[in-house]
Protein backbone atom coordinates (compact mmCIF):
# COMPACT_ATOMS: atom_id res chain seq x y z
CA UNK A 1 0.00 0.00 0.00
CA UNK A 2 1.02 3.60 -0.65
CA UNK A 3 3.21 4.71 2.30
CA UNK A 4 1.63 8.13 2.31
CA UNK A 5 -1.69 6.61 3.35
CA UNK A 6 -0.35 5.09 6.55
CA UNK A 7 1.09 8.37 7.81
CA UNK A 8 -0.37 9.59 11.06
CA UNK A 9 -1.75 13.12 11.14
CA UNK A 10 1.35 14.24 13.01
CA UNK A 11 3.68 12.61 10.48
CA UNK A 12 1.69 13.96 7.53
CA UNK A 13 1.87 17.49 8.95
CA UNK A 14 5.62 17.12 9.52
CA UNK A 15 6.13 15.94 5.93
CA UNK A 16 4.06 18.82 4.63
CA UNK A 17 6.08 21.25 6.74
CA UNK A 18 9.50 19.97 5.75
CA UNK A 19 8.54 19.84 2.09
CA UNK A 20 9.04 16.08 1.62
CA UNK A 21 5.35 15.76 0.71
CA UNK A 22 2.97 18.21 -0.93
CA UNK A 23 -0.70 18.52 -0.06
CA UNK A 24 -1.52 17.81 -3.69
CA UNK A 25 0.38 14.50 -3.57
CA UNK A 26 -1.22 13.49 -0.29
CA UNK A 27 -4.71 14.54 -1.38
CA UNK A 28 -4.30 12.73 -4.69
CA UNK A 29 -3.16 9.58 -2.86
CA UNK A 30 -6.33 9.76 -0.73
CA UNK A 31 -8.57 10.23 -3.77
CA UNK A 32 -6.90 7.28 -5.53
CA UNK A 33 -7.43 5.11 -2.48
CA UNK A 34 -11.10 6.11 -2.44
CA UNK A 35 -11.41 5.26 -6.14
CA UNK A 36 -9.72 1.91 -5.56
CA UNK A 37 -11.92 0.81 -2.64
CA UNK A 38 -15.16 2.76 -2.85
CA UNK A 39 -17.01 0.04 -4.78
CA UNK A 40 -16.39 -2.34 -1.84
CA UNK A 41 -16.77 0.11 1.08
CA UNK A 42 -19.08 2.87 -0.11
CA UNK A 43 -17.93 5.35 2.52
CA UNK A 44 -18.94 8.51 0.67
CA UNK A 45 -22.16 10.14 -0.47
CA UNK A 46 -20.49 13.05 -2.26
CA UNK A 47 -16.87 13.31 -3.38
CA UNK A 48 -15.36 16.75 -3.89
CA UNK A 49 -12.14 15.57 -5.53
CA UNK A 50 -11.59 18.48 -7.91
CA UNK A 51 -12.25 21.12 -5.29
CA UNK A 52 -9.98 19.20 -2.89
CA UNK A 53 -7.09 19.15 -5.39
CA UNK A 54 -7.59 22.86 -6.02
CA UNK A 55 -7.54 23.57 -2.27
CA UNK A 56 -4.47 21.34 -1.91
CA UNK A 57 -2.59 23.24 -4.62
CA UNK A 58 -3.56 26.49 -2.95
CA UNK A 59 -2.25 25.17 0.38
CA UNK A 60 1.03 24.17 -1.28
CA UNK A 61 1.38 27.58 -2.93
CA UNK A 62 0.77 29.27 0.38
CA UNK A 63 3.40 27.16 2.08
CA UNK A 64 5.95 27.93 -0.62
CA UNK A 65 5.14 31.64 -0.49
CA UNK A 66 5.68 31.55 3.26
CA UNK A 67 9.35 30.64 2.74
CA UNK A 68 9.87 34.22 1.64
CA UNK A 69 8.12 35.52 4.76
CA UNK A 70 9.58 33.59 7.66
CA UNK A 71 7.61 35.65 10.18
CA UNK A 72 4.25 34.50 8.89
CA UNK A 73 2.70 31.68 10.88
CA UNK A 74 0.93 29.19 8.70
CA UNK A 75 -2.31 27.55 9.81
CA UNK A 76 -1.53 24.44 11.86
CA UNK A 77 -3.30 21.91 9.60
CA UNK A 78 -2.44 23.49 6.25
CA UNK A 79 -2.94 20.97 3.45
CA UNK A 80 -4.21 18.05 5.54
CA UNK A 81 -6.96 16.10 3.71
CA UNK A 82 -9.97 15.03 5.76
CA UNK A 83 -13.53 13.79 5.18
CA UNK A 84 -16.68 15.25 6.75
CA UNK A 85 -19.81 13.36 7.72
CA UNK A 86 -22.73 14.36 5.54
CA UNK A 87 -24.57 15.75 8.54
CA UNK A 88 -22.25 18.75 8.96
CA UNK A 89 -22.68 21.48 6.38
CA UNK A 90 -20.01 22.73 4.00
CA UNK A 91 -21.17 25.80 2.06
CA UNK A 92 -21.74 25.01 -1.60
CA UNK A 93 -21.50 21.23 -1.18
CA UNK A 94 -24.75 19.29 -1.10
CA UNK A 95 -25.65 17.99 2.36
CA UNK A 96 -28.04 15.03 2.25
CA UNK A 97 -27.90 13.75 5.84
CA UNK A 98 -28.34 10.33 4.23
CA UNK A 99 -31.93 11.31 3.41
CA UNK A 100 -33.84 11.50 0.19
CA UNK A 101 -35.59 14.58 1.55
CA UNK A 102 -32.31 16.56 1.26
CA UNK A 103 -31.10 14.97 -1.97
CA UNK A 104 -30.64 18.33 -3.67
CA UNK A 105 -30.03 20.58 -0.68
CA UNK A 106 -26.94 22.78 -1.04
CA UNK A 107 -26.39 24.67 2.22
CA UNK A 108 -25.30 28.30 1.94
CA UNK A 109 -23.33 28.12 5.20
CA UNK A 110 -20.57 26.01 6.78
CA UNK A 111 -20.78 24.34 10.18
CA UNK A 112 -18.60 26.11 12.76
CA UNK A 113 -16.72 22.90 13.60
CA UNK A 114 -15.85 22.48 9.92
CA UNK A 115 -15.13 26.18 9.38
CA UNK A 116 -12.60 26.22 12.18
CA UNK A 117 -10.73 23.31 10.61
CA UNK A 118 -10.93 24.98 7.19
CA UNK A 119 -9.46 28.10 8.79
CA UNK A 120 -6.73 25.83 10.19
CA UNK A 121 -5.99 24.71 6.63
CA UNK A 122 -7.66 21.33 6.04
CA UNK A 123 -8.66 20.12 2.59
CA UNK A 124 -12.08 18.40 2.40
CA UNK A 125 -12.17 15.41 0.03
CA UNK A 126 -15.85 14.56 0.46
CA UNK A 127 -18.96 13.99 2.55
CA UNK A 128 -19.29 10.58 4.19
CA UNK A 129 -22.24 8.26 4.45
CA UNK A 130 -24.50 8.22 7.50
CA UNK A 131 -27.69 6.65 8.72
CA UNK A 132 -30.50 8.98 7.72
CA UNK A 133 -30.36 12.05 10.00
CA UNK A 134 -27.89 10.05 12.17
CA UNK A 135 -30.66 7.66 13.24
CA UNK A 136 -29.07 4.26 13.27
CA UNK A 137 -26.18 2.14 14.46
CA UNK A 138 -25.07 0.49 11.22
CA UNK A 139 -25.05 3.02 8.34
CA UNK A 140 -27.57 0.74 6.63
CA UNK A 141 -30.36 3.33 7.00
CA UNK A 142 -29.02 5.62 4.30
CA UNK A 143 -31.06 6.55 1.24
CA UNK A 144 -27.78 6.29 -0.69
CA UNK A 145 -27.05 2.67 0.20
CA UNK A 146 -25.16 1.02 3.05
CA UNK A 147 -21.47 1.39 3.97
CA UNK A 148 -19.47 -1.79 4.58
CA UNK A 149 -16.83 -2.56 7.18
CA UNK A 150 -13.28 -2.59 5.75
CA UNK A 151 -12.37 -5.45 8.15
CA UNK A 152 -15.13 -7.64 6.68
CA UNK A 153 -17.34 -6.25 3.96
CA UNK A 154 -20.14 -8.64 4.95
CA UNK A 155 -20.44 -6.65 8.18
CA UNK A 156 -21.62 -3.17 9.06
CA UNK A 157 -19.17 -0.40 9.98
CA UNK A 158 -21.42 0.73 12.84
CA UNK A 159 -23.20 4.03 12.74
CA UNK A 160 -24.28 6.55 12.30
CA UNK A 161 -20.81 7.94 11.42
CA UNK A 162 -20.06 4.66 9.62
CA UNK A 163 -18.88 6.37 6.44
CA UNK A 164 -16.28 8.39 8.35
CA UNK A 165 -15.12 5.37 10.39
CA UNK A 166 -14.83 3.15 7.31
CA UNK A 167 -13.01 5.87 5.34
CA UNK A 168 -10.42 6.24 8.11
CA UNK A 169 -10.06 2.47 8.60
CA UNK A 170 -9.60 1.96 4.83
CA UNK A 171 -6.88 4.65 4.82
CA UNK A 172 -8.94 6.80 2.45
CA UNK A 173 -8.25 9.80 4.71
CA UNK A 174 -6.06 10.24 7.80
CA UNK A 175 -9.03 11.59 9.79
CA UNK A 176 -12.72 12.42 9.44
CA UNK A 177 -15.42 14.31 11.30
CA UNK A 178 -18.44 12.58 12.74
CA UNK A 179 -21.35 13.38 15.01
CA UNK A 180 -22.41 11.56 18.18
CA UNK A 181 -25.91 11.77 19.65
CA UNK A 182 -26.02 8.33 21.30
CA UNK A 183 -22.73 6.70 20.26
CA UNK A 184 -22.48 7.58 16.59
CA UNK A 185 -18.75 8.38 16.72
CA UNK A 186 -17.65 5.79 19.29
CA UNK A 187 -19.59 2.72 18.12
CA UNK A 188 -18.40 2.91 14.47
CA UNK A 189 -14.88 3.74 15.72
CA UNK A 190 -14.99 0.49 17.74
CA UNK A 191 -16.40 -1.59 14.85
CA UNK A 192 -13.79 -0.23 12.43
CA UNK A 193 -10.77 -0.27 14.77
CA UNK A 194 -10.17 3.49 14.87
CA UNK A 195 -10.05 6.12 17.61
CA UNK A 196 -13.05 8.44 18.05
CA UNK A 197 -13.78 11.30 20.43
CA UNK A 198 -17.24 12.42 21.50
CA UNK A 199 -16.73 15.75 23.26
CA UNK A 200 -18.44 17.24 26.26
CA UNK A 201 -21.82 18.72 25.30
CA UNK A 202 -21.16 22.42 24.75
CA UNK A 203 -17.47 22.00 23.90
CA UNK A 204 -17.89 22.05 20.10
CA UNK A 205 -20.44 24.20 18.30
CA UNK A 206 -23.52 22.55 16.84
CA UNK A 207 -24.06 25.35 14.33
CA UNK A 208 -24.34 23.61 10.96
CA UNK A 209 -24.68 20.16 12.55
CA UNK A 210 -28.08 19.18 11.22
CA UNK A 211 -30.26 18.78 14.31
CA UNK A 212 -31.42 15.37 15.54
CA UNK A 213 -31.57 15.40 19.35
CA UNK A 214 -30.46 18.91 20.27
CA UNK A 215 -29.74 18.24 23.96
CA UNK A 216 -27.52 15.27 22.98
CA UNK A 217 -25.91 16.14 19.60
CA UNK A 218 -22.11 16.62 19.50
CA UNK A 219 -19.50 16.82 16.73
CA UNK A 220 -16.33 14.75 17.07
CA UNK A 221 -13.30 13.34 15.28
CA UNK A 222 -12.34 9.86 14.05
CA UNK A 223 -8.65 9.17 13.40
CA UNK A 224 -5.97 6.51 13.79
CA UNK A 225 -4.83 7.45 17.26
CA UNK A 226 -5.70 9.60 20.23
CA UNK A 227 -2.89 11.95 19.30
CA UNK A 228 -4.23 12.39 15.77
CA UNK A 229 -7.78 12.93 17.03
CA UNK A 230 -6.49 15.52 19.53
CA UNK A 231 -4.64 17.46 16.83
CA UNK A 232 -7.92 18.01 14.98
CA UNK A 233 -10.12 18.28 18.03
CA UNK A 234 -8.75 21.34 19.81
CA UNK A 235 -9.03 23.76 16.89
CA UNK A 236 -12.75 22.82 16.61
CA UNK A 237 -13.58 23.50 20.23
CA UNK A 238 -14.70 26.62 22.06
CA UNK A 239 -17.45 29.19 22.41
CA UNK A 240 -19.38 30.07 19.28
CA UNK A 241 -21.81 32.99 19.24
CA UNK A 242 -23.90 30.93 16.79
CA UNK A 243 -24.55 28.17 19.35
CA UNK A 244 -25.80 29.42 22.71
CA UNK A 245 -25.03 26.09 24.39
CA UNK A 246 -21.28 26.35 23.74
CA UNK A 247 -19.12 27.20 26.69
CA UNK A 248 -16.01 29.30 27.01
CA UNK A 249 -13.52 27.10 28.78
CA UNK A 250 -9.97 28.03 29.73
CA UNK A 251 -7.71 27.11 26.82
CA UNK A 252 -7.06 23.45 27.46
CA UNK A 253 -4.89 22.65 24.49
CA UNK A 254 -3.62 19.13 24.75
CA UNK A 255 0.10 18.45 24.69
CA UNK A 256 1.71 15.08 24.24
CA UNK A 257 2.18 13.92 27.83
CA UNK A 258 5.71 14.23 29.16
CA UNK A 259 5.17 11.69 31.90
CA UNK A 260 5.87 8.08 31.00
CA UNK A 261 3.22 6.65 33.31
CA UNK A 262 -0.34 7.00 34.42
CA UNK A 263 0.75 7.06 38.05
CA UNK A 264 -2.10 8.01 40.34
CA UNK A 265 -4.79 7.79 37.67
CA UNK A 266 -7.97 6.41 39.26
CA UNK A 267 -9.82 4.17 36.82
CA UNK A 268 -13.41 3.22 37.58
CA UNK A 269 -14.81 0.00 36.16
CA UNK A 270 -18.60 -0.04 36.47
CA UNK A 271 -20.08 -3.47 37.02
CA UNK A 272 -23.21 -2.53 35.04
CA UNK A 273 -21.17 -2.42 31.80
CA UNK A 274 -20.25 -6.10 31.79
CA UNK A 275 -23.42 -7.97 30.91
CA UNK A 276 -23.97 -11.73 30.86
CA UNK A 277 -25.14 -11.70 27.22
CA UNK A 278 -22.14 -9.89 25.78
CA UNK A 279 -19.51 -11.43 23.52
CA UNK A 280 -16.90 -12.98 25.89
CA UNK A 281 -13.97 -11.80 23.77
CA UNK A 282 -15.11 -8.18 24.10
CA UNK A 283 -15.04 -8.43 27.89
CA UNK A 284 -11.69 -10.26 27.76
CA UNK A 285 -9.95 -7.64 25.59
CA UNK A 286 -11.39 -4.72 27.53
CA UNK A 287 -10.33 -6.22 30.87
CA UNK A 288 -6.86 -6.86 29.45
CA UNK A 289 -6.66 -3.22 28.36
CA UNK A 290 -7.71 -2.09 31.85
CA UNK A 291 -4.94 -4.29 33.31
CA UNK A 292 -2.49 -2.61 30.98
CA UNK A 293 -3.59 0.84 32.19
CA UNK A 294 -2.98 -0.47 35.72
CA UNK A 295 0.51 -1.65 34.75
CA UNK A 296 1.16 1.84 33.44
CA UNK A 297 0.42 3.20 36.92
CA UNK A 298 -3.37 3.46 37.10
CA UNK A 299 -5.36 2.28 40.11
CA UNK A 300 -8.43 0.23 39.26
CA UNK A 301 -11.60 0.67 41.34
CA UNK A 302 -14.82 -1.23 40.90
CA UNK A 303 -17.63 1.31 40.83
CA UNK A 304 -21.37 1.37 40.22
CA UNK A 305 -23.49 3.50 37.92
CA UNK A 306 -26.78 2.14 39.25
CA UNK A 307 -29.17 3.72 36.74
CA UNK A 308 -27.33 2.43 33.65
CA UNK A 309 -30.12 0.02 32.71
CA UNK A 310 -32.50 2.95 32.27
CA UNK A 311 -30.28 4.85 29.83
CA UNK A 312 -31.65 3.02 26.80
CA UNK A 313 -35.37 3.67 27.43
CA UNK A 314 -34.58 7.25 28.52
CA UNK A 315 -32.63 7.87 25.35
CA UNK A 316 -35.23 6.32 23.08
CA UNK A 317 -37.87 8.65 24.47
CA UNK A 318 -35.84 11.88 24.67
CA UNK A 319 -33.98 11.63 21.34
CA UNK A 320 -37.09 10.81 19.27
CA UNK A 321 -39.06 13.53 21.10
CA UNK A 322 -36.42 16.10 20.18
CA UNK A 323 -36.20 14.64 16.66
CA UNK A 324 -39.95 14.91 16.13
CA UNK A 325 -39.72 18.64 16.83
CA UNK A 326 -36.47 19.20 14.90
CA UNK A 327 -37.62 17.35 11.81
CA UNK A 328 -40.88 19.31 11.61
CA UNK A 329 -38.92 21.78 9.44
CA UNK A 330 -38.95 19.36 6.50
CA UNK A 331 -42.27 20.33 4.99
CA UNK A 332 -41.62 20.58 1.25
CA UNK A 333 -41.97 24.37 1.24
CA UNK A 334 -38.68 26.14 1.92
CA UNK A 335 -36.09 23.51 1.00
CA UNK A 336 -35.82 19.78 0.41
CA UNK A 337 -38.01 17.27 -1.38
CA UNK A 338 -41.51 18.38 -2.36
CA UNK A 339 -44.30 16.07 -3.48
CA UNK A 340 -46.93 17.43 -5.83
CA UNK A 341 -50.21 17.90 -3.98
CA UNK A 342 -53.47 19.79 -4.28
CA UNK A 343 -53.69 21.03 -0.71
CA UNK A 344 -51.15 22.31 1.79
CA UNK A 345 -51.90 19.49 4.25
CA UNK A 346 -51.35 16.90 1.56
CA UNK A 347 -48.13 18.67 0.53
CA UNK A 348 -46.76 18.28 4.06
CA UNK A 349 -47.92 14.69 4.50
CA UNK A 350 -46.76 13.41 1.12
CA UNK A 351 -43.42 15.28 1.04
CA UNK A 352 -42.51 13.91 4.46
CA UNK A 353 -43.78 10.38 3.82
CA UNK A 354 -41.86 10.02 0.56
CA UNK A 355 -38.81 11.96 1.69
CA UNK A 356 -38.15 10.15 4.99
CA UNK A 357 -37.06 6.52 5.37
CA UNK A 358 -38.58 3.96 7.76
CA UNK A 359 -36.33 4.58 10.80
CA UNK A 360 -36.83 8.33 10.66
CA UNK A 361 -40.59 7.91 10.46
CA UNK A 362 -40.47 5.43 13.33
CA UNK A 363 -38.59 7.85 15.58
CA UNK A 364 -40.78 10.81 14.60
CA UNK A 365 -43.84 8.70 15.48
CA UNK A 366 -42.32 7.57 18.77
CA UNK A 367 -41.32 11.10 19.73
CA UNK A 368 -44.67 12.55 18.74
CA UNK A 369 -46.39 9.98 20.92
CA UNK A 370 -44.07 10.64 23.87
CA UNK A 371 -44.87 14.36 23.66
CA UNK A 372 -48.59 14.06 22.96
CA UNK A 373 -51.34 15.22 25.29
CA UNK A 374 -52.01 12.68 28.03
CA UNK A 375 -48.67 10.88 27.64
CA UNK A 376 -46.16 13.71 28.08
CA UNK A 377 -45.69 13.30 31.84
CA UNK A 378 -45.58 9.51 31.79
CA UNK A 379 -43.03 9.27 28.97
CA UNK A 380 -41.07 12.42 28.23
CA UNK A 381 -41.40 13.95 31.70
CA UNK A 382 -40.42 10.73 33.47
CA UNK A 383 -37.50 10.20 31.05
CA UNK A 384 -36.10 13.66 31.82
CA UNK A 385 -36.28 12.90 35.56
CA UNK A 386 -34.51 9.55 35.20
CA UNK A 387 -31.95 11.38 33.07
CA UNK A 388 -31.17 13.48 36.16
CA UNK A 389 -30.48 10.26 38.09
CA UNK A 390 -28.15 9.05 35.33
CA UNK A 391 -26.27 12.37 35.43
CA UNK A 392 -25.96 12.11 39.20
CA UNK A 393 -24.50 8.60 38.85
CA UNK A 394 -21.67 10.11 36.82
CA UNK A 395 -21.22 13.09 39.15
CA UNK A 396 -20.85 10.74 42.11
CA UNK A 397 -18.53 8.39 40.25
CA UNK A 398 -16.24 11.23 39.24
CA UNK A 399 -15.86 12.15 42.91
CA UNK A 400 -14.07 8.82 43.33
CA UNK A 401 -12.32 8.20 40.01
CA UNK A 402 -10.73 10.21 37.18
CA UNK A 403 -11.88 8.10 34.27
CA UNK A 404 -14.37 5.30 33.72
CA UNK A 405 -13.39 2.41 31.42
CA UNK A 406 -15.95 0.17 29.70
CA UNK A 407 -16.55 -1.69 26.45
CA UNK A 408 -17.93 0.46 23.62
CA UNK A 409 -20.35 -2.20 22.42
CA UNK A 410 -21.51 -5.61 23.68
CA UNK A 411 -20.29 -7.30 20.46
CA UNK A 412 -17.94 -6.70 17.55
CA UNK A 413 -19.37 -5.62 14.17
CA UNK A 414 -22.56 -7.48 13.27
CA UNK A 415 -23.57 -8.74 9.84
CA UNK A 416 -25.21 -6.58 7.22
CA UNK A 417 -28.98 -7.07 7.54
CA UNK A 418 -28.77 -8.78 10.93
CA UNK A 419 -31.04 -6.28 12.72
CA UNK A 420 -33.06 -5.22 9.68
CA UNK A 421 -36.52 -5.94 11.04
CA UNK A 422 -35.89 -5.54 14.72
CA UNK A 423 -35.42 -1.90 15.73
CA UNK A 424 -35.15 -2.76 19.42
CA UNK A 425 -32.22 -5.14 18.79
CA UNK A 426 -30.53 -2.33 16.84
CA UNK A 427 -31.13 0.11 19.71
CA UNK A 428 -29.46 -2.32 22.14
CA UNK A 429 -26.20 -1.84 20.21
CA UNK A 430 -25.95 1.59 21.85
CA UNK A 431 -26.45 0.43 25.41
CA UNK A 432 -22.92 1.42 26.58
CA UNK A 433 -22.60 4.66 24.66
CA UNK A 434 -25.95 6.37 25.38
CA UNK A 435 -25.29 7.28 29.03
CA UNK A 436 -22.45 9.70 28.18
CA UNK A 437 -24.74 11.68 25.87
CA UNK A 438 -27.48 11.79 28.50
CA UNK A 439 -24.96 13.10 31.06
CA UNK A 440 -23.13 15.36 28.60
CA UNK A 441 -19.71 13.96 29.56
CA UNK A 442 -16.96 13.22 27.01
CA UNK A 443 -16.14 9.71 25.79
CA UNK A 444 -13.32 8.28 23.70
CA UNK A 445 -13.28 4.93 21.89
CA UNK A 446 -10.06 3.20 20.81
CA UNK A 447 -9.05 -0.28 19.66
CA UNK A 448 -7.83 -2.78 22.27
CA UNK A 449 -7.62 -6.01 20.27
CA UNK A 450 -9.39 -8.29 17.84
CA UNK A 451 -11.82 -11.17 18.20
CA UNK A 452 -11.23 -14.62 16.65
CA UNK A 453 -12.82 -13.49 13.41
CA UNK A 454 -10.33 -10.66 13.13
CA UNK A 455 -12.83 -7.94 13.99
CA UNK A 456 -11.72 -4.97 16.11
CA UNK A 457 -12.75 -4.64 19.77
CA UNK A 458 -13.07 -1.14 21.22
CA UNK A 459 -12.76 0.28 24.71
CA UNK A 460 -14.52 3.41 25.87
CA UNK A 461 -13.14 5.80 28.44
CA UNK A 462 -15.20 8.62 29.92
CA UNK A 463 -14.28 11.60 32.07
CA UNK A 464 -16.07 14.48 33.75
CA UNK A 465 -17.21 17.52 31.78
CA UNK A 466 -14.41 19.25 29.81
CA UNK A 467 -11.75 16.64 30.64
CA UNK A 468 -11.16 15.49 27.05
CA UNK A 469 -7.46 16.19 27.74
CA UNK A 470 -7.41 13.33 30.24
CA UNK A 471 -9.04 10.94 27.76
CA UNK A 472 -6.51 11.80 25.06
CA UNK A 473 -3.61 11.32 27.50
CA UNK A 474 -4.79 7.92 28.75
CA UNK A 475 -5.39 6.57 25.24
CA UNK A 476 -2.09 8.08 24.10
CA UNK A 477 -0.21 6.16 26.81
CA UNK A 478 -2.00 2.94 25.93
CA UNK A 479 -1.22 3.41 22.24
CA UNK A 480 2.46 3.98 23.00
CA UNK A 481 2.54 0.39 24.26
CA UNK A 482 0.26 -1.33 21.76
CA UNK A 483 -0.12 -1.45 18.00
CA UNK A 484 -3.80 -2.36 17.58
CA UNK A 485 -4.42 1.11 16.20
CA UNK A 486 -1.81 0.62 13.48
CA UNK A 487 -3.13 -2.71 12.13
CA UNK A 488 -4.43 -2.70 8.58
CA UNK A 489 -7.58 -4.48 7.37
CA UNK A 490 -6.66 -7.48 5.17
CA UNK A 491 -8.53 -5.87 2.28
CA UNK A 492 -5.74 -3.29 2.03
Amino acid at each position, binding site marked *: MDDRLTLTVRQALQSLQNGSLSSEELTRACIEQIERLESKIHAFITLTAEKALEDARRADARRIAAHRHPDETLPSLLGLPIAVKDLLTVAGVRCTCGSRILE*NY*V*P*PFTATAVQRLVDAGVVIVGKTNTDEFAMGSSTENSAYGATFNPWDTGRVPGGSSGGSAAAVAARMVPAALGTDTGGSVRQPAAFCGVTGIKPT*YGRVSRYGLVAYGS*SLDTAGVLAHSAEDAAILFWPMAG*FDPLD*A*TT*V*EQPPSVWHTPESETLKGLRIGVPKEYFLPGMQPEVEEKVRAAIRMLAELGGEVHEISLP*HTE*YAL*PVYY*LIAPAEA*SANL*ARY*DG*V*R*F*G*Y*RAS*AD*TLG*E*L*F*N*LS*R*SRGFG*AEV*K*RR*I*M*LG*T*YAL*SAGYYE*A*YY*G*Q*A*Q*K*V*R*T*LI*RRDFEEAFQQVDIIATPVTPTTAFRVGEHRDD*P*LAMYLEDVFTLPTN*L*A*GVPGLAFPVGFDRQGLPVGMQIMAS*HFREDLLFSVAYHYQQHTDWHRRLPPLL
Partner: protein
Amino acid sequence: MTLTLAEVEHIAQLARLHLSEEEKIRFREQLSAILDYAARLQQVDTRDIPPTSSVLPPRSRLREDEPRPALPQQVILANAPFPYQGYFRVPPVLE
Protein backbone atom coordinates in the same frame (compact mmCIF):
# COMPACT_ATOMS: atom_id res chain seq x y z
CA MET B 1 -49.27 -2.26 25.99
CA THR B 2 -50.48 -2.38 22.42
CA LEU B 3 -51.32 0.72 20.46
CA THR B 4 -54.54 0.62 18.50
CA LEU B 5 -54.58 1.29 14.79
CA ALA B 6 -56.57 4.44 15.51
CA GLU B 7 -53.82 5.66 17.85
CA VAL B 8 -51.20 5.02 15.18
CA GLU B 9 -53.28 7.02 12.71
CA HIS B 10 -53.71 9.84 15.22
CA ILE B 11 -49.94 10.03 15.88
CA ALA B 12 -49.23 9.97 12.14
CA GLN B 13 -51.61 12.88 11.65
CA LEU B 14 -49.94 14.87 14.46
CA ALA B 15 -46.55 14.12 12.87
CA ARG B 16 -47.80 15.04 9.39
CA LEU B 17 -46.98 11.66 7.95
CA HIS B 18 -49.04 9.73 5.46
CA LEU B 19 -48.66 6.02 6.24
CA SER B 20 -49.59 3.10 4.01
CA GLU B 21 -51.78 0.35 5.53
CA GLU B 22 -48.71 -1.87 5.73
CA GLU B 23 -46.70 0.82 7.53
CA LYS B 24 -49.52 1.33 10.03
CA ILE B 25 -49.50 -2.34 10.94
CA ARG B 26 -45.71 -2.53 11.17
CA PHE B 27 -45.38 0.67 13.21
CA ARG B 28 -48.16 -0.49 15.50
CA GLU B 29 -46.17 -3.61 16.37
CA GLN B 30 -42.77 -1.96 16.56
CA LEU B 31 -43.86 1.11 18.51
CA SER B 32 -45.79 -1.09 20.95
CA ALA B 33 -42.66 -3.20 21.55
CA ILE B 34 -40.51 -0.11 22.12
CA LEU B 35 -43.07 1.45 24.48
CA ASP B 36 -43.28 -1.83 26.39
CA TYR B 37 -39.54 -1.71 26.83
CA ALA B 38 -39.76 1.93 27.94
CA ALA B 39 -42.39 1.04 30.53
CA ARG B 40 -39.58 -0.03 32.89
CA LEU B 41 -39.00 3.68 33.56
CA GLN B 42 -42.25 3.72 35.50
CA GLN B 43 -40.57 1.59 38.19
CA VAL B 44 -38.05 4.33 39.00
CA ASP B 45 -38.92 6.46 41.99
CA THR B 46 -38.56 10.04 40.78
CA ARG B 47 -40.37 11.85 43.57
CA ASP B 48 -38.47 15.11 44.26
CA ILE B 49 -36.19 14.54 41.27
CA PRO B 50 -36.15 17.54 38.93
CA PRO B 51 -36.17 16.88 35.19
CA THR B 52 -32.94 17.60 33.32
CA SER B 53 -33.29 20.75 31.29
CA SER B 54 -29.59 21.19 30.60
CA VAL B 55 -26.56 18.96 31.20
CA LEU B 56 -24.39 21.96 32.05
CA PRO B 57 -25.04 24.69 34.60
CA PRO B 58 -27.18 27.32 32.88
CA ARG B 59 -25.35 30.43 31.76
CA SER B 60 -26.76 33.59 30.39
CA ARG B 61 -24.19 34.88 28.04
CA LEU B 62 -25.92 37.01 25.47
CA ARG B 63 -24.31 38.18 22.29
CA GLU B 64 -24.06 41.86 21.52
CA ASP B 65 -27.23 43.18 19.94
CA GLU B 66 -25.58 44.35 16.73
CA PRO B 67 -27.19 44.32 13.32
CA ARG B 68 -25.48 41.87 11.00
CA PRO B 69 -26.10 41.10 7.35
CA ALA B 70 -28.43 38.15 6.75
CA LEU B 71 -28.22 35.78 3.80
CA PRO B 72 -29.60 37.40 0.63
CA GLN B 73 -33.08 36.42 -0.50
CA GLN B 74 -31.88 34.73 -3.69
CA VAL B 75 -29.45 32.54 -1.74
CA ILE B 76 -32.24 31.34 0.53
CA LEU B 77 -34.64 30.78 -2.36
CA ALA B 78 -32.01 28.78 -4.27
CA ASN B 79 -33.00 25.73 -2.22
CA ALA B 80 -36.76 26.29 -2.46
CA PRO B 81 -38.45 23.57 -4.50
CA PHE B 82 -41.06 25.95 -5.94
CA PRO B 83 -40.11 29.62 -5.65
CA TYR B 84 -42.29 32.24 -7.32
CA GLN B 85 -41.29 35.90 -7.74
CA GLY B 86 -39.33 35.91 -4.50
CA TYR B 87 -41.87 33.85 -2.55
CA PHE B 88 -42.24 30.25 -1.44
CA ARG B 89 -45.20 28.93 -3.39
CA VAL B 90 -47.68 26.46 -1.83
CA PRO B 91 -51.04 25.02 -2.88
CA PRO B 92 -54.11 27.12 -1.98
CA VAL B 93 -54.92 27.12 1.73
CA LEU B 94 -58.44 28.54 1.32
CA GLU B 95 -60.83 27.64 -1.42
